[in-house]
């Protein structure tokens, strides 16, 4: 393994450490590898001489308790040297990883922004359809109920009017008056017969209307409720 590979692997394994601790661990091993190479070893031999990666990681994580104050994070440097920045660049810094993500997202924006907008439009269209269907169902249902009721009331009213007319016609035209009276009674009877049904329709219409509206509301809220559940919620 080359030094860079070793440092990368070690940095990944010790990612749980706070930044100053992580840096110190990496610098420690980097220094030892460099010293060995200076002594004449090859980079790979120097890395191998460090031993088992598991043990290195274990020892470096030893005594680490999150939250406890660690040793002085920045030892005094004498003298200050620009090479320190190079050592920092070599160590896989977490700041670098955080830098790449937003850059990639910004670069890809001409691709995903239109897709996102299309997605939003589709979702909005679905909502419009849902509510259009619910409301038209609601309106149609009530239209039917009300028209039935209107016909029923018309029958009753018609019957009453017919009887009144018949009474007025009787003196002059007896037979006509009788006919009208009979028709009026029939119509009135029809109206009375269907009256309970009308009332029933009203009640059904009230319940069904509420049900349709509530159903549409629940469907609209469904995507928001799913997010509150843990992963593995019920499928639609």
């Amino acid at each position, binding site marked *: 393994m080359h030094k860079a590979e070793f440092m990368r692997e070690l940095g990944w394994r010790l990612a749980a450490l706070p930044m100053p601790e992580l840096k*110190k*661990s990496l*610098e*420690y*091993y980097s*220094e*030892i590898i*460099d*010293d*060995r190479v*200076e002594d004449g070893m090859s980079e790979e031999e120097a890395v191998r001489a*460090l*031993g*088992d990666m598991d*043990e*290195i990681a*274990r*020892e*470096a994580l*030893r*005594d680490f308790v999150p939250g406890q104050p*660690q*040793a*002085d994070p920045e*030892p*005094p*440097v*004498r*003298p200050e*040297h620009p*090479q*320190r920045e190079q*050592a920092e660049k070599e160590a896989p810094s977490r700041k670098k990883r955080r830098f790449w993500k937003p850059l990639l997202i910004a670069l890809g924006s001409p691709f995903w922004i239109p897709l996102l907008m299309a997605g939003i439009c589709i979702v909005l269209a679905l909502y419009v359809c849902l509510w259009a269907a619910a409301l038209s169902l609601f309106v149609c249902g009530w239209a039917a109920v009300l028209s039935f009721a209107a016909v029923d009331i018309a029958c009753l009213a018609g019957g009453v009017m017919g009887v009144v007319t018949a009474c007025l016609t009787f003196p002059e035209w007896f037979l006509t008056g009788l006919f009208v009276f009979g028709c009026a009674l029939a119509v009135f009877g029809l109206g009375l017969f269907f009256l309970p049904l009308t009332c029933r329709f009203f009640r059904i219409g009230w319940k069904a209307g509420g049900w349709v509206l509530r159903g549409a509301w629940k469907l609209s809220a469904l995507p928001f409720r799913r997010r509150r559940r843990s992963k593995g919620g019920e499928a639609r």
Partner: protein
Amino acid sequence: MRDIVLPKGGVGMDVQLRRGLLEVCVLTVLCRGDSYGYRLVRDVSDIIEISESTLYPILKRLEAAGMVSVYSVEHNGRLRRYYKITEPGCRRIDVFMGEWKELMRVYRRIEGEMGAKGDA
């Protein structure tokens, strides 16, 4: 909780005991003069078996306890971390010597007893 650690080819030793010993060995080497990681591993290995990975937490602990101070020196275009023993570090060695003087006394007594019984 005490477990016995078996280092490569070494004798089984209590973990806490071994770590305490290693700390004092590092401090003793540093008494000769300030040193850096790679050289410390070599010098301490003369006294007791130690690897780079074992040395690291010991240096961390000594630094945290204030028994060792650290500074960086430029060397061949890179930074080398030097460790220096402090006053508390020197006192730690004295405490160790005192503790073990008593230990050695008891050890010789036990050695004598066991030797007398024919166990060598």
